[in-house]
């Protein structure tokens, strides 16, 4: 089966134009909230870059500043402690009494902060503070302190308080370059609270610097997104406008960037498209006008010729046989020519979209009976009808008559008797009620190769037959008339042989008479 699509009516196109982007509005709304749109991605990229750079910068600055701060304090503390320890004269073996006094002396010299000094010698444990043993000195420091004659230090955090612990062994000088540990190891424990406060302040400063940076990054991100998105939006709007037939759509070109190039290219392509479409339209319009003009020009002489054919027919009997035959031929061909010209004009009007639908609410069965009766097919036993009463539809009576007459005439000429005309109403897939007229014959059917072209103008299913009794435009006109009713027409073959044409016209509830 072939379904012939219904071409858009000009009026509908106008409506769409008037609405502008009306039907496309939902798409636009959807794009506004698109989750991973260009805008979102641009913002995310900008924020990511800003966050990474701000974070890295702050982290590096923080680390360097913190190290510098701590290192200064540490170095000062270690060297001061070493000096103090070296300067102090130690009496060996160390005795428990008296050492605390020395340790307290040492504790007073703490730099840059006061420290608590501990001494460990064999089993002797002493300190400048209250406890003889510090709880922050780790075994690792003890090991390192005894191993390295220049002393070791360690940063320890205990209960949230940072400490610098320094271990310093005392040595004998046994030669110019050699020393021997005395076994006395001194430890200094210094609270680094002030340094920690400074370091914390650094951290806060870095963070405070990075966050506004991120916020500020949003502004260029939004600006960049806008500068990209606006041309993109314009491009989309222009493309849609072109798609809806406004070929004169152009985009304003701003700046000299890639997007401007894109807009330029778009405008150029649009211009070329407009030109070629314009040329095509002009050519088509010229061709149509020519066909219309030709048929108009033919009509006037035909009107005169047709007026005198009767005279020819009536008097032919009185002429000699050859002349009579010639006269009858001219008369008959004049009649056919008149039909052809009428059909050509009708097609021209469809092409020019000048065909009007003069709809009237009619009883469809009655209209079909009338069509058959007027063409003297009513009593024809080659035609069977099934026309249920009380089906009323809004149709153009003249055009509907043309449709039925063409289909039945076609079936009688090319198909085989009996020709059946069936009328019924049906609910279509979309739920609307449609009027269905089926014209079927019991002839050989339509060859498969001819089916797609059956509604083409001047199409001959049988190439050998050079001329059919009709104008060759009958089915094309039928198709146009059905389309004008917003209907469809299909051609196909019956399983048992024979062709069937099915006309479907949607029924409307509107009233007919003004």
């Amino acid at each position: 089966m072939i379904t012939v699509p219904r071409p858009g009516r000009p009026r509908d196109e106008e409506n769409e134009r008037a609405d502008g982007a009306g039907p496309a509005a939902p798409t636009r709304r959807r794009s506004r909230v698109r989750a991973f749109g260009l805008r979102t991605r641009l913002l995310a990229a900008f924020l990511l870059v800003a966050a990474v750079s701000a974070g890295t910068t702050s982290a590096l600055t923080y680390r360097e500043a913190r190290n510098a701060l701590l290192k200064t304090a540490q170095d000062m503390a270690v060297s001061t402690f070493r000096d103090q320890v070296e300067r102090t004269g130690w009496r060996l073996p160390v005795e428990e009494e008296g050492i605390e006094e020395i340790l307290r002396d040492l504790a007073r010299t703490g730099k840059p902060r006061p420290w608590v000094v501990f001494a460990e010698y064999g089993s002797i444990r002493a300190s400048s503070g209250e406890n003889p043993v510090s709880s922050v000195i780790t075994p690792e420091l003890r090991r390192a302190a005894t191993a390295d004659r220049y002393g070791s230090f360690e940063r320890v955090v205990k209960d949230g308080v940072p400490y610098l612990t320094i271990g310093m062994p005392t040595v004998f000088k046994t030669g110019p370059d050699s020393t021997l540990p005395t076994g006395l190891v001194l430890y200094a424990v210094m609270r680094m609270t002030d340094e920690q406060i400074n370091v914390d302040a650094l951290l806060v400063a870095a963070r405070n610097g990075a966050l506004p940076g991120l916020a500020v990054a949003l502004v260029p991100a939004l600006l960049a997104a806008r500068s990209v998105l606006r041309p993109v939006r314009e491009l989309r709007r222009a493309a849609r406008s072109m798609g809806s037939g406004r070929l004169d759509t152009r985009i304003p070109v701003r700046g000299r960037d890639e997007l401007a190039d894109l807009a330029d290219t778009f405008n150029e392509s649009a211009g070329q498209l407009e030109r070629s479409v314009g040329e095509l339209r002009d050519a088509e319009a010229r061709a149509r006008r020519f066909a219309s003009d030709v048929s108009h020009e033919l009509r006037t002489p035909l009107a005169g010729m047709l007026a005198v054919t009767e005279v020819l027919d009536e008097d032919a009997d009185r002429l000699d046989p050859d002349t009579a035959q010639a006269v009858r031929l001219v008369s008959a061909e004049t009649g056919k020519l008149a039909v052809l010209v009428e059909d050509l004009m009708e097609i021209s009007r469809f092409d020019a979209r000048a065909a009007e639908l003069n709809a009237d609410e009619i009883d469809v069965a009655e209209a079909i009976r009338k069509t058959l009766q007027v063409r003297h097919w009513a009593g024809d036993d080659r035609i069977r009808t099934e026309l249920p009463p009380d089906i009323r539809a809004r149709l153009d009576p003249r055009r509907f008559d043309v449709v039925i007459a063409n289909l039945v005439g076609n079936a009688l000429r090319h198909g085989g008797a009996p020709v059946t005309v069936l009328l019924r109403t049906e609910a279509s897939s979309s739920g609307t009620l449609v009027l269905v007229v089926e014209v079927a014959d019991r002839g050989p059917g339509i060859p498969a190769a001819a089916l797609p072209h059956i509604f083409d103008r001047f199409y001959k299913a049988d190439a050998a037959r050079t001329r059919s009794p009709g104008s060759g435009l009958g089915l094309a006109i039928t198709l146009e008339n059905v389309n004008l009713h917003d209907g469809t027409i299909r051609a196909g073959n019956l399983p048992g042989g024979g062709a069937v044409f099915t006309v479907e016209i949607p029924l409307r509830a509107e009233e007919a008479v003004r």
Partner: protein
Amino acid sequence: MSRVLLVEDDPFVREGVQLGLRRRGHDVRAAGTGEDGLAALAGFRPDLLLLDLMLPGMTGVQVCRRIREHSQLPIIMLTARGDDFDVVIGLEAGADDYIVKPARPEVIDARIRAVLRRMDDGSTGRPAIEVYGDLTIDRIGLTVSKAGRPLTLAPSELRLLLHLSAAPEQVFSRQQLLENVWEHTFHADGRLVDACVARLRGKIEDEVGDPRYVQTLRGFGYRFGPL
């Protein structure tokens, strides 16, 4: 046999139609322009005017209007199908019927006879004079008057009124009226009826916007009354 005045600008068509109609027994006088046609009216006194719409100078529609100013001469327009706009204008100007060109003399002859046929609507047994409201219809004398004032109706208007009023309150579809009043056997243009109804209403109704006599039944057609 009737006297037909043909106004047609193309000499070949004019000659052909004249020849064809003369063979069918009509007395045909032809004119090439609207002005010549109007001038020929008084001397020839035709029964019917066959008027081409497309004329040089004065158009068929203008001729039609000019004649309707003072005469109810039956007028049939010759048009080309597709010149729909002209058909409507012509019908509104007062033409009684139209013929699509090119047409055989047979068809033209049938239209002429239909327009000229006197009303024969089986009014036997009915009183010759009927009164509906202000309207008095004389079926024998074929006159209509409103509140005592005689109305001049074109042939198609009179036939339509007589047909509708012969069966008051019965609804006629446009196709039925085309068949019965205009004797169109082919499916014709319903606007022929609409234009005639509009003209008739202009003459018999008190208010054209709210008709009493010729009423519209949307979706079905027209009816006479109820008053």
